[in-house]
């Protein structure tokens, strides 16, 4: 690492644009909505399940809310795909396929994971992460895969008569199993691993505001992602986009939204664990 220069605090670099942040907001909303309206069905034995479903207004309301949130999530997914296509086709930006700004797993992710794990147990230095670390790529692909599998199986269960023209009826048996198990995986992963990796771990606690403000403190970026920082400051064509410190209003709004999501998520985790431990 080059000799460290002290940076005046408060200088921020733009990391996520508004579009991505709003999209993530809808992702949060639909995901929390789908989880709270879907989990009662998966844990019908638990005392909270029936209360939650009745709290929403009974079966028909819960059922329709689940499909409303599903529609939002499908729209989020398609919007994201649309943006990727726009970058590739219209802007001829192929950096999404390979390189430091790509989500595609690359050899450096393997070595970084290996070195990160070694660092956990006190062997060697922390790897110098670039824009997306391996666990962030896992988060991304887990959600991507999850949307395909849960969304696909969900649509099958939503329109079984229609899909029965394409697939035999026993596909719906598999669709229901996969929908539930994948949902459990997604909910469990997002509300524990993702929450920890991005917000609750000691370095970030109580939460990383970057997904709400879009800006990351320069000092933090240099420490967290030294490779990316070095790449950005060394690039005369694409220098880092320095921006103002997030406004109080944006920061407070982000905190409220983030805290609400974390509280709902962790509550659902506790409810799931309580239901699982009853067996």
């Amino acid at each position, binding site marked *: 690492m080059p000799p460290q220069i002290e940076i005046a605090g408060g200088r921020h670099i733009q990391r996520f644009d508004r579009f991505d942040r709003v999209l993530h907001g809808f992702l949060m909303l639909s995901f929390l909505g789908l989880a709270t309206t879907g989990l009662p069905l998966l844990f019908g034995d638990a005392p909270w399940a029936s209360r939650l479903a009745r709290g929403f207004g009974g079966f028909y309301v819960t059922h329709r809310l689940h499909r409303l949130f599903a529609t939002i999530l499908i729209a989020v997914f398609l919007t994201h795909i649309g943006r990727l296509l726009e970058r590739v086709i219209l802007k001829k930006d192929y950096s999404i396929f390979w390189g430091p700004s790509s989500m595609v797993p690359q050899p450096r992710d393997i070595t970084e994971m290996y070195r990160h794990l070694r660092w956990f147990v006190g062997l060697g230095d922390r790897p110098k992460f670039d824009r997306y670390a391996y666990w962030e790529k896992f988060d991304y692909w887990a959600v991507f895969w999850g949307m395909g599998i849960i969304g696909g199986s969900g649509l099958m269960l939503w329109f*079984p008569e229609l899909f029965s023209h394409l697939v035999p*009826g*026993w596909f719906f048996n598999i669709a229901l199993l996969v929908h539930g198990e994948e949902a459990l995986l997604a909910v469990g992963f997002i509300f524990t691993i993702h929450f920890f990796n991005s917000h609750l771990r000691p370095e970030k606690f109580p939460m990383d505001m970057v997904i709400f403000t879009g800006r990351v403190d320069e000092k933090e970026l240099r420490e967290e992602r030294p490779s990316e920082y070095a790449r950005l400051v060394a690039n005369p064509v694409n220098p880092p986009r320095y921006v103002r410190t997030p406004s109080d209003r944006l920061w407070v709004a982000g905190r409220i939204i983030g805290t609400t999501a974390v509280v709902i998520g962790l509550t659902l985790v506790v409810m799931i664990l309580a239901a699982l431990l009853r067996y």
Partner: protein
Amino acid sequence: MKIRGVIGTAALAWALALGFSARAHVAAALEPAPQATKPAPQAPAPSNDDCLACHDDASMKRANGTPVYVSKDAFAASVHAPINCVDCHADLAHTAEFPHPEKLAKVDCSSCHADQVAQYKQSTHALARTRGNSVAARCADCHGLHDIRGSKDPQSRTYHLNIAATCAKCHGSHDVIVRGKIAIGDVATPFSDSIHGRALSRSGLLVAPTCSDCHGAHDILQKSDPKSRVALANVPATCGKCHEGIEHQFEGSVHASFLAKGSNGAPACQTCHTPHAIQRAENADWQLSVVNQCGSCHTDKLKTYRDTFHGQVTKLGFRAVATCADCHGNHAILPASDPRSPISPANRLQTCRKCHTTATANFVKYDPHADKHDRKRNPFLYFTARFMQILLTGTFGFFGLHTLLWTMRTTRRNGKGGGHASAD
């Protein structure tokens, strides 16, 4: 049905005979002849007026302070008004001295109502008495004493609309249930909330059944007695007295054939409908509870049903999707191998279409009792479940450990108060 006809005719003949004999008894009592035939040395029997001269006086008391009161009006309104006091209190027929001794012989109703008393003596009430049960009902407990009215009289304790309340005096009384060791407990409360109880008490329907329609009146037997109207094997016929069409449906069912064979656990009407708390068939809560009732025998089927969307929604307490009866039928349940069964291969599509109106032949390949543990029956589901298990265990296992190690590393570093670990 021939047998039913014969039994019915026999029962009618028996009932008529009973009626005539009872009338003959009353007629005999009305005639002055008995007095004339009495031996001369004996004192003339006291008339009802003689008796009521004292007993109609509410202030007259026994030595222990209890009143000897017999309401003249109540007696006059009773079915026994035409007969003499001494016809029942026969030990006073030749008494000349008054006041007579306080302790009288027990009234023997069988002197007139021989058949009813003979039936009663075989009943569970009488048998309980002989076993030392001091609270089991006797004639007067249901019929009353001096104010007995005919069962057609709306004020009678045994009038159709009053019977449930008469039985409830004991079968809804905690004290009697405890002292009488009545195993089934309070049946009056569930009955009063049942469709039959409501039909009687709220709608005032004479056609609605009351206790005696299922249990009989004088000849009530325990359900463990094979002759009892409510013995398991006899229940369909008992319910069929009113629900005859349903009885015919049930007769052909697989359940009825098990019942006829005396198979252990074979269900009769009350197995699903409950004996006393019978609800409207449209009652959603009851329909949901029947699922568990079916599952009390068909345990494996309930388990696999609960793994389906249908089973999950009903477990949550909503009746929006198919329960057992929606696919299997209700009274005329038949095995899938029977071509008349709604789940027979030929009828399945039609059955699914009751809800899934546009279902196709392909749709019907859905397994409403798929078992993810059954490799033979559902191979694809089985391997998908295994794969999901590995995926979940693997993901949570790896990232659980990842998270744990990360936390330990960061807290240790912070604990040392050291800076970034880039000491290169």
